């Protein structure tokens, strides 16, 4: 019996009303219930109340620049296709034929004139509209059938500086409102050069037997683990242990999105053995100061990590971007990309490509120790007694500060659980459908 089958036999105790949900997240005491990483019913509610409502990362515009270009991905467990239409607009279409449900796209990426279902030949245009079907004559006799009603279901799409997001919630507020002041931080990577950014070609996909929230919260705020989990990788890449950053360090969060960072400017990018990317970041500092100011310039390559709620994470400096796609309460699909400035010289892009591969990818020397931590933090909760124990998320309580420049909720010290608590506050707000974004 696989791990993902075991939960069907676990007794379900209380119903998942708001009182029950609130009991899982105790932010006043920094305690979190392990059930949120294990329980199937909670997971199903996440698919409905988080993944069907939030703005979710889809792709970078640079991946689908031409008419008919597409990439396949998912929103929660809903498979979708992002396609550049004949009008140049990007649409995100449900990858499921409205006739009998089969997928209409089986490739990860490519260029197509239409999406045709392999089952009955229903054919859909690049904008998702139904073009026609096999034996179409019979449908002309079908009373009440109108082709315009049977296109591929569409998500609402918006972009922020090259990043494409989508939501299935047609009543959702704007992407700008969803990101809020976190955009000020995103500009550190997305807008430090006037030419904008692109993803280096290709992506790497793997599966880990972990709940999706463990890696997402890790990227939102877990600077703490780096010195212990990644010591062997630091020895390999730097010849030394992970150093404690000197100077001020912070957790910042907005609407559940989190970014933890030092202001050392180059701490993350320095872990590439090749110094090309490090020299590139240093050489551009004066120019970036004019564009973004001193504080954000110090964030560009710094020791840091970030997560856009719910499941889109990245490491500034390493420039590795990823989504943690939920595939059940105990399984997550990880898809990894690398972001570079469009104007960066070819040798710099190559340095980032190789740097991401050797540090943070399925073969990355840093990443290969993370997966085990998250898998065991998930599967240990199959034990009934284990599952009753609360987890400690209380580090850094009371460390909120006012900062003249940093936006959002700011707290001092990167060795903290502040952003993780903010992540779960937003999780709880959406799950209980209560309260405003913070």
């Amino acid at each position, binding site marked *: 019996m696989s791990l993902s089958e075991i939960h069907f036999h676990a007794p379900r105790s209380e119903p998942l009303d708001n009182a029950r949900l609130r009991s899982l997240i105790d932010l006043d005491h920094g305690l979190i219930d392990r059930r949120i990483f294990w329980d199937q019913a909670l997971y199903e509610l996440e698919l409905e109340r988080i993944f069907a409502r939030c703005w979710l990362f889809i792709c970078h515009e640079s991946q689908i620049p031409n008419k008919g270009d597409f990439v396949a991905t998912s929103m929660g467990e809903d498979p979708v296709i992002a396609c550049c239409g004949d009008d140049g607009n990007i649409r995100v279409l449900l990858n499921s034929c409205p006739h009998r449900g089969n997928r209409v796209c089986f490739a990860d990426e490519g260029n197509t004139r239409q999406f*045709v279902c392999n089952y009955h030949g229903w054919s859909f245009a690049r904008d998702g509209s139904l073009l026609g*079907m096999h*034996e179409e004559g019979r449908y002309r006799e079908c009373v009440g059938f109108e082709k315009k009603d049977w296109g591929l279901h569409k998500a609402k799409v918006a972009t922020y500086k090259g990043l494409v997001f989508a939501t299935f919630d047609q009543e959702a507020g704007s992407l700008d409102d969803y990101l809020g002041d976190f955009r000020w931080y995103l500009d550190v990577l997305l807008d430090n050069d006037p030419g904008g950014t692109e993803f280096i070609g290709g992506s790497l996909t793997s599966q880990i037997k972990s709940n999706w929230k463990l890696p997402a919260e890790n990227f939102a705020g877990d600077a703490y683990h780096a010195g212990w989990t990644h010591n062997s990788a630091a020895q390999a890449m730097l010849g030394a242990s992970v150093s404690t950053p000197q100077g001020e360090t912070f957790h910042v969060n907005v609407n559940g999105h989190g970014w933890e960072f030092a202001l050392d400017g180059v701490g993350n990018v320095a872990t590439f053995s090749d110094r090309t990317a490090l020299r590139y970041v240093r050489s551009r500092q004066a120019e970036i100061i004019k564009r973004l100011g001193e504080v954000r310039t110090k964030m560009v390559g710094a020791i840091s990590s970030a997560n856009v709620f719910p499941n889109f994470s990245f490491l500034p400096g390493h420039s590795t971007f990823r989504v943690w796609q939920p595939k059940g309460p105990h399984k997550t699909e990880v898809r990894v990309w690398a972001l570079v400035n469009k104007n960066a010289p070819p040798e710099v892009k190559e340095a980032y490509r190789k740097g991401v591969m050797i540090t943070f990818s399925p073969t990355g020397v840093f990443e290969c120790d993370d997966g085990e931590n998250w898998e065991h933090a998930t599967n240990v909760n199959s034990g009934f007694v284990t599952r009753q124990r609360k987890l400690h998320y209380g580090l850094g309580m009371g460390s909120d500060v006012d900062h003249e420049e940093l936006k959002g909720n700011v707290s001092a010290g990167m060795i903290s659980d502040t952003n993780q608590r903010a992540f779960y506050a937003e999780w709880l707000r959406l799950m209980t459908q209560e309260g405003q974004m913070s």
Partner: protein
Amino acid sequence: MALQNSTRPKKNKKDKEMTVFLCKFSDMFAGESRKFTFTNRPPIALFRLEDGYFATDDTCTHAAGSLSEGFIEGDCVVCPVHPGEFDIRTGRAQCFPAEKDLAVYSLRIADDQIFLDIEV
């Protein structure tokens, strides 16, 4: 791209056969296609290839795709609905799901004008 063009056919002496003016020779460039609709018969697609003009039925024999909105690849047209292909010159169906050949029509060129002889 298809250009819908309704024309009133000019009756000639032969029973039920018409000569229809379509366009001037210089109106279309190689790789372009247009659709012509009629009141009493299905539409016609006109294609210009490197070496001249060719006319076929516009409606794909598989489903209801308009071939004048399809994609010209060499001497073939690919239906925009499903990737069935037809030889533009002969109308012959080339691959699944196109299995039945297209009707093709003769064209006459006179004084830089292209005429189509069809039955209505």
